[in-house]
């Protein structure tokens, strides 16, 4: 079963293509963890997270300037190179300036499998579905507004697919997604021990694979894997316990886990969208299903969002939740250049880590290359040595 996770992580496109061929079902790509994946799943679609390649760009340089987010540029390049030619649609939430621009870039540039179905100038079967996600995630009118957005998305999807998506199917999807969250949460709980039951990289790989494979399959595999792990009593190597905070964590950026582990550290918890933010908040099953999805989506505590308290601290609340009882000894911020929301919040969060949690912080500004990561190795080693004393 470990091999299945690793296969999805390492050969994501082939694995998904194979799945599509075997099942004959549709696959949609999406950006960012606030996407209402559950609605796609209810429509019998496999939602897969779009990520980059880390390879030199072939096409995207002609469309997006080089100082823009290297991750997003790589995603677009992969689309333009046909890596995502198996997708039947793409979902773009308004989750940051650059992802918002993907609505335009993917709609106008990336080859799509079918021609637009124009009626009175409107594409009734759009390839790219845009979700006007609010930036403010609390406040009296946020939920009613976002519910309307989700209803619109669902209707657009139904029209595209020429089928309805009944509530009962969405409820079933919610229960599958919740079961997966339960298992991932269980995996994180097993990392509270010292040494943790599994390494930071292995845990990341499992979360990442879950963004590429059907959730029911992922939850079942993970349950068996964790059962075996518990009965075997295996653990990851000991190491300085690290909290990792950063930008989109795909196969390229995940090299930071290896560097931390090589340097004598072990990531035990995180503030990542391919990490705690993807599963920490469960969907309430006693609510109307769209409302449950809306509440989950609004609860992702993305660095780009804000709340209505007089002096907003929503991000800090998430960090407190995901550091408590993990015995964190050091925090590493691995932030990509151009990730403005993260770059802006960093000095404030760094001070809070030091002052309120007494945890030292290392800041690394990445460029989404393995070479760039290697250059950080020395700083990571020095940081971990400093903690070890």
């Amino acid at each position: 079963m470990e091999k299945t996770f690793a296969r999805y992580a390492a050969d994501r496109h082939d694995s998904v293509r194979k799945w599509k061929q075997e099942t004959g079902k549709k696959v949609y790509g999406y950006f960012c963890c606030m996407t209402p994946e559950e609605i796609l799943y209810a429509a019998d679609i496999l939602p897969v997270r779009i990520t980059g390649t880390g390879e030199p760009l072939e096409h995207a340089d002609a469309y997006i300037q080089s100082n823009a987010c290297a991750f997003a540029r790589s995603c677009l390049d992969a689309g333009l190179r046909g890596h995502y030619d198996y997708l039947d649609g793409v979902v773009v939430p308004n989750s940051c300036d650059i992802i918002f621009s993907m609505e335009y870039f993917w709609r106008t540039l990336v080859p799509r499998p079918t021609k637009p179905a124009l009626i009175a100038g409107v594409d009734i079967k759009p390839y790219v579905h845009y979700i006007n996600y609010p930036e403010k995630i609390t406040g009296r009118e946020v939920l009613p507004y976002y519910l309307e957005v989700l209803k619109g998305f669902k209707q657009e999807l139904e029209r595209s697919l020429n089928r309805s998506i009944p509530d009962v199917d969405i409820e079933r999807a919610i229960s599958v997604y919740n079961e997966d969250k339960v298992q991932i949460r269980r995996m994180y709980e097993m990392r509270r021990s010292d040494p943790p039951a599994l390494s930071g990289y292995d845990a990341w790989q499992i979360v990442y694979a879950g963004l590429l494979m059907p959730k029911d399959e992922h939850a079942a595999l993970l349950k068996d894997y964790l059962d075996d792990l518990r009965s075997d009593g295996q653990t990851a190597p000991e190491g300085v316990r690290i909290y990792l905070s950063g930008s989109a964590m795909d196969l390229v950026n995940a090299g930071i886990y290896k560097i931390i582990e090589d340097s004598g550290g072990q990531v035990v918890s995180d503030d990542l969208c391919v990490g705690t933010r993807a599963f920490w908040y469960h969907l309430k099953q006693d609510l109307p299903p769209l409302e449950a999805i809306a509440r989950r989506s609004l609860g992702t505590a993305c660095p780009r969002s804000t709340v209505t308290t007089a002096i907003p601290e929503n991000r800090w609340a998430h960090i407190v939740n995901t550091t408590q009882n993990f015995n964190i000894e050091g925090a590493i911020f691995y932030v990509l250049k151009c990730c403005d929301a993260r770059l802006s919040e960093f000095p404030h969060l760094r001070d809070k880590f030091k002052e309120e949690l007494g945890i030292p912080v290392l800041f690394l500004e990445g460029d989404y290359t393995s070479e760039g990561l290697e250059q950080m190795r020395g700083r990571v080693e020095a940081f971990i040595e400093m903690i070890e004393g």
Partner: protein
Amino acid sequence: MSEQQKVATKGSRKTLEAARNTWKFIMQDYGEGHEHKNAGKPVVWSCATVEKELYYSMGLFPYYPEQFASLCAVRRKTKDSEKEAVRFARYAEQAGYSTDLCGYERVCTGYVINGDLSDAPLGGMAPPDMLVTTSTVCDVRLKWFEDMAQRLQVPLFTLDRPESVFENIMGHPKPHEIRYYRSQFEDFLSFSTEVTGNKFDQDRLNECLDWAYKTNELRLEILELRKNIPSPMGSADSFATMYPGMYCSGTEKAYEFYKTLRDEVKAKVEAGKGQIPNERFRLLWYGIPTWFNMSIFNYFEPVGGVFAYEPAYNPVPWPTRNTADPLTEMAIRTLSIGTSMGSRIRAVLEQCREYNVVGGVLAYLITCRAYYLPVLELARALKEELGVPSVFIECDLVDERSYSEAQVRTRMDAFSEMILKKTGAEVAYQTG
């Protein structure tokens, strides 16, 4: 271009009296803000894209950190010291803010970190009672204002504005988007009352909106006049005169300012007088200006080139007044403007046609995602759809350390030569 016309980080040569008088307007406005604060009345620090009529109707005096940063980009503490923008940006960088972040953000954050808010050009912005920002245009404004609120321990309100994804420049927002944005105004008014004790008065808001509409009409009239050949008012004049419309919308003084400006531009058009005597080609400036070096807008003048239009800060037509429900009216007004890449690129293409532009100078502001994201696509669309070539200028908006004068001159010289060669036979309106 001859050696005598060296690019330097200095102010622009303005062709309009009203443009030369704007500085007086700004100084008075800053002074009024300090008087307001000294009289115990509330001050707000706001991002630039909030509907300003709200502030005037609630008795708040607004300062705009983005504008303040641009002010710092042109002022020095002493004759020999570095620009104030650079001094403040350094404080922010020393505190851990990346140099990749927006210059406006770094300058204002550094200004706050410095601690003494009066230690700045024009005595700085009066200390705020509240901060207000919006979610539109870029993520930075939201996070930057959040950060300043935390540092200053001053309450923050964010107006969450759904993005407007249209095929064209303007469009029809969806009912739930209008409802949501309207609710943001209502919540702001409650927040404002809670912080200041001032109550909302709809008649007062309608009064401010009446001034704002009249001002907007004047500004649209000026834009129409600017389409004339030769160009009566260029980008240097336009950027110099945007302050009253951009930051004092809803006041009588802004209206009076543009009445004078409109009259001056109209007189120039009637007299057939352009920005320069021999206009040979018309350019577009895309982006926020390089505030620390506004002389760039006069760079092409010796060879007959003028900047005829710039999309930043210019008005669009508003929907008709709705005095019974001004909040809905404001919501529709804002949400009707497309904010997606597609809308923004369409808008510039249309404007290039209207203003007879033959070349584009695209200020690729390396720290401003709102402007650098569309820039390559815009250049491609200009070339493919209109046959209009472009040149890029790379720098920050206010931090002159990122500006390479030699590189800019080389690019602009080559560009002007190319435009002259290309348009030599084509420019029908050539007067030189």
